[in-house]
């Protein structure tokens, strides 16, 4: 296994995802296979001079620096899970490690 159980749990924490205990062995196995598979890229000689390719327009067009209305058909009170007096309501912060 190229990716350990502990690594998967650490990455899941970074990604803010709960992983159920029962799903963990399969996830470790799948991730190891995927990482082993993409690792063939490191067999290609590194060439630091290759310019990164970005599709799309060569130059980003800047918009005028002004406030434009969003034209929403309805407001956040209708699509947020909990919204009160102009604020999204969340549980208390708790312990951030």
């Amino acid at each position: 296994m190229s990716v350990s159980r502990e690594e998967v749990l650490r990455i899941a924490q970074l990604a803010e995802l709960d992983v159920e205990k029962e799903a963990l062995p399969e996830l470790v196995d799948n991730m190891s296979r995927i990482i082993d598979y993409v690792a063939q890229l490191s067999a290609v000689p590194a060439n630091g001079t290759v310019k990164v390719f970005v599709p799309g327009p060569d130059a980003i067009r800047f918009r005028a620096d002004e406030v434009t209305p969003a034209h929403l058909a309805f407001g956040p009170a209708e699509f947020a899970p909990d919204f009160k007096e102009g604020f999204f309501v969340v549980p208390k912060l708790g312990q951030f490690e």
Partner: protein
Amino acid sequence: MSDAKAVADRLVKAKRLNALLTPPKDLRKSLAIQEAAARPTGVLYGMPVAVKDNICTLEFTTTCGSRILEGYRSPYEATAVAKLKTAGALIAGKTNCDEFAMGSSTEHSAYGRVLHPLDKARVPGGSSGGSAALVAAGAVPAALGSETGGSVRQPAAFCGVVGIKPTYGRVSRYGLVAFGSSLDQIGVFGRSVHDAARVLSVISGRDPRDSTCEDRDPLRLPTVPESLQGFVIGLPKEYFPPELDPAVRRACDRAVRLMKELGAAVREVSLPHTPYAVPTYYVIAPAEASSNLARYDCVRYGPRFDGRVDLRGLYRSTRGQGFGPEVRRRILVGTYVLSAGYYDAYYKRAQQMRALIAQDFRNAFDRGVDLLFTPTVPSPAFKAGEKLSDPIAMYMSDIFTVTANLAGLPAMSLPIGRIKGLPLGGQLVGQAFLEDEMIEAAYALERVVPATDEA
């Protein structure tokens, strides 16, 4: 011109495919309202176009095939959808897809798999499998899908319809739910090249709301050519490996022979970095996905699956339960390849490889080739469940399609024959923003290729 009731009836008749996520009642009600409001002068007046469920619409919910957006109604609509409506088209419901467009079989939808219209034991391909299946079943003449690594062309090939992925920047991504932002493009399905092309021409063109959309006029449709005289078609040898399914090879050989008979010059070319395309894609796409999907925090939209008291616990439990297994896997792989200690070995290396893959195409086109022709997928539609337990086998289904996304090029699939009744697709890859040439060649090939004959 078809009336709203007939449109709805045809869609409801195709219900057994599980291709449409919109409930019949909502569909009928909305179609009647849309019909009354549609502009009779529009170039697509009365044409029903189904829309993949990761493209925002005001008429229907936008769930991306995920539980984490169950019941979500977008307060705005995608530019592509707005343009369709301006042209008089009817938005004919939302189509089932792999969750957040991550998959190649439409088995990774939280709302059940889509059945292949010709063989219910098989998959329609993915991730835009619902759109492809509805067009193939004759329920709609055209549909929108989205592409990150082949999610329009691969299901188009499996279902025997036409699928076009435009050049990156040809169509606005505003309102397309982001997966891999440097790869994503909205694409179109059609019963014929013309149906797909005219929808593409309507949705293309500049959009001040998407800075990655090029400042260009909408695509102009070419006329159907008499011949392919003057066209140089390249056959990349890496796309015809010795282990290629013999039926796929026969169908391609036949299509190539027909293009030659129409006057095209055909020559072999090489895209040497092709073997690295799938691993490159499966680093870059998950990396971008892990970042894009960080927005699903169950605070601003979507349901909550909580039961815990603090904010971080709420994030983790909702995201853990709201995302399905393939999306979780890709978020984790993406987070892994971007994390300290692995970034250089995976992400940076993949970025370099992407540049080399794009350069391969430029080299081929610089040597006088106008278009490339390849199989779209190495095999016909596979059986449901066949590749579910092996993510790598599922990823290999994209081997001939991911390169066009990595290089930002236009590409399309059209039916070129069948094997044991199952459709096979041929792929044309064009030069950036030369969709018109690609569509011209497709028009010519479509007229002569025996698309429903055994290869």
